[in-house]
């Protein structure tokens, strides 16, 4: 039993934090929004060069063969900067699925490839305009399609740094990769949404703390008032009790059982709630500034809102936890339970 991160994990996360922090600055968000863009090819090239896109692809399929905990730390750093690029969808969810179904596929050997993924639950596909391939769910199968066979209709997300599209496609024009583990994809999506939520939440608290130290009213920094302090302390508390769930969920995705599913869902629910709580607290602490387009906190709120709806609603995820709670033993000796394999 060891719940600490390894030195390599911390180093990878540090690389991500630095890369994202240097390139995905508030000024850069603003430039992208001005030009109505949600994809920066230069940053994507750098992301591909660091190996983040190959992390969840096994070595036998040309990847780095790392695990969900490793990638979750990258997703958390991506959340902290509300990264516009589809790193999580492509590298965190689509690539490992493709590697399971078609380990020899050339896309897996191209670190810059963007694979869009369209589970039946999602009404829209993120970053479909820059995707080099699509993984599509139909009747439990995964279909692989090239962009020229997909009809894209832009939809407008409330999140200005997220491009979403309704898609039309014809299974006859796509390659049927056979039955696919969409549940596993949902688990990964849940864990990495949770990781992004942790990043979003911490960013919101950090922005609000910085503002509260600076902004003066009644002759004092507003951060010296308890009502302000307590909003932020409550948000930080929510973060502290979502993060270990997220990490544990990442560590158990591979288990693939009812316990792993419940934990992934738990992580997703509480992490996105923490992000929402922190973002709303940050808006409140900023006063009218927080309600203005020019101040960045709304971007965090909107990303959290967007993530909350896709890959299963909170009610869907709560039902997965209920299934675990009501059909398996619960209690203090069951925290790290696994399904016993039937011999």
């Amino acid at each position, binding site marked *: 039993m060891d*719940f600490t991160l390894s030195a390599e994990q911390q180093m990878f996360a540090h690389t991500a934090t630095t890369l994202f922090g240097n390139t995905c600055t508030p000024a850069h968000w603003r430039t992208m929004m001005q030009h109505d863009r949600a994809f920066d090819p230069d940053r994507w090239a750098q992301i591909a060069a660091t190996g983040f896109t190959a992390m969840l692809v096994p070595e036998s399929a040309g990847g780095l063969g790392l695990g969900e905990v490793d990638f979750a730390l990258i997703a958390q750093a991506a959340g902290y900067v509300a990264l516009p690029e589809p790193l999580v969808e492509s590298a965190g969810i689509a690539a490992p699925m493709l590697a399971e179904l078609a380990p020899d596929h050339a896309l897996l050997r191209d670190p810059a490839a963007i694979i869009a993924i369209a589970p039946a639950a999602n009404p829209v596909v993120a970053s479909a305009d820059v995707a080099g391939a699509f993984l599509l769910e139909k009747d439990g199968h995964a279909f692989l399609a090239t962009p020229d066979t997909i009809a894209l209709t832009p939809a407008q997300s409330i999140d200005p740094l997220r491009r979403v599209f309704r898609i039309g496609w014809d299974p006859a024009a796509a390659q049927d990769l056979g039955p696919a583990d969409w549940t596993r994809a949902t688990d990964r999506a849940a864990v990495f949404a949770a990781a992004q939520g942790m990043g979003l939440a911490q960013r919101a*608290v950090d922005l609000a703390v910085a503002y509260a130290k600076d902004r003066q009213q009644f002759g004092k920094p507003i*951060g010296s008032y308890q009502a302000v302090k307590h909003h932020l*302390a409550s948000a930080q508390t929510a973060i502290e009790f979502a993060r270990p769930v997220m990490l544990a969920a990442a*560590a158990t995705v591979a288990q693939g059982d009812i316990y792993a599913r419940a934990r992934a869902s738990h992580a997703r629910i509480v992490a996105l709630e923490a992000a929402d709580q922190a973002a709303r607290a940050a808006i409140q602490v900023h006063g009218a500034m927080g309600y203005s387009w020019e101040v960045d906190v709304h971007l965090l709120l909107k990303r959290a809102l967007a993530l909350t709806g896709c890959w299963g609603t909170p009610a869907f995820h709560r039902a997965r936890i209920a299934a675990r709670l009501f059909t398996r*033993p*619960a*209690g203090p000796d069951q925290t*790290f339970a696994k399904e016993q394999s039937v011999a």
Partner: protein
Amino acid sequence: MDLSYTPKQQAFRAEVRHWLEAHVPADPLEHYDASRAGFEAHRAWEATLKSGDWGMVTWPKDYGGRGLDLIEWLIFEEEYYRAGAPGRVNQNGIFLLGPTLMEFGTPAQKQRFLPPMASGEEIWAQAWSEPQAGSDLAGVRATAVRDGDDYVLSGHKIWSSRAVFADWAFGLFREPGSERHKGMSLIFFKLDAPGVTRTPIRKINGHVGFAEIVLEDVRVPAFNRLGDEGQGWHICMATAGFERGLMLRSPARYQVAAASLAGMWQARRNSADPLLEADVVRAFMNAEAYALNIYQTASRLSAGAKIGAEASTNKIFWSEMDIHLHQTALAILGADAELVPEPGTLRRGDHDWLDDYIFALAGPIYAGSNEIQRNIIAERMLGLPR
């Protein structure tokens, strides 16, 4: 990161389970705050625990423990709560003063105080709060005057849990004339010493769960001072860290309650408000989240880290979770919620949801109120100005 138990840890769990199955009393003991008899029954249980060397498993063998690590302590606690074993009457000793003694005590002090603490021969109360010094603990007025090799203690303490029946107290006293955080010392005194008067105070559940303590020229040897003279505040904050951060409320307590709640929900769901299922699931999630957080903290501490201000987030989380869980239980009970269980009807492992709810309401007050914890988080974790 490896979230599975080693074979050694699994064997340890089996050993604890086996021992508890053979020893935990079949019927619940009378509450330790309810009467002298209930208190003494719990003391006897502590002696039984000690007979199996289970008093405090993390302490070194020389001091009555087993020299185990924090993960093993968590496993012990998990089995302990699973077994429905009696509450720990000496929790102020073993969970608060014990770890503090381990860190700040001299070898002679450890040898003198820890073994009888582990065995329940000496049961401890915490005497910090005063009528004028609650949240603002640095306002304590009780004094310790040095007289040769002794201290002479005077003052007025209040809200001291278990002090009605306990043997010893660890109190916070100041050098006369000193101010605020300076000049304080942590000093032990016997609750039946000449000059000590204790008056029981009834809690809202009717039990005499805490006491007011008046000290008039109580003489104790300087040996009873923990740490250096004037270091009392620093030591108290370390104790408070153990209290809030890890030891006082082990996750198993809430996991057992959340599992029982799920069972009660399944038995009564047909007659209960369907919306409550979300709360039942939430209670389970909270208990799991708390457990995972504590496992993470235990791993970090084992790797050499120290408990910091994040301990304050724990205190908020467990106290709020406890209230939510018990409110949910009462909501499921519906019209039956107000009914106090008939005496003698609760069996081992049964929950007295009503009494536990009333107890949960104290959570946001003791061990530093949640308002104070939020101040600490904001100022020390987030760096907001005072």
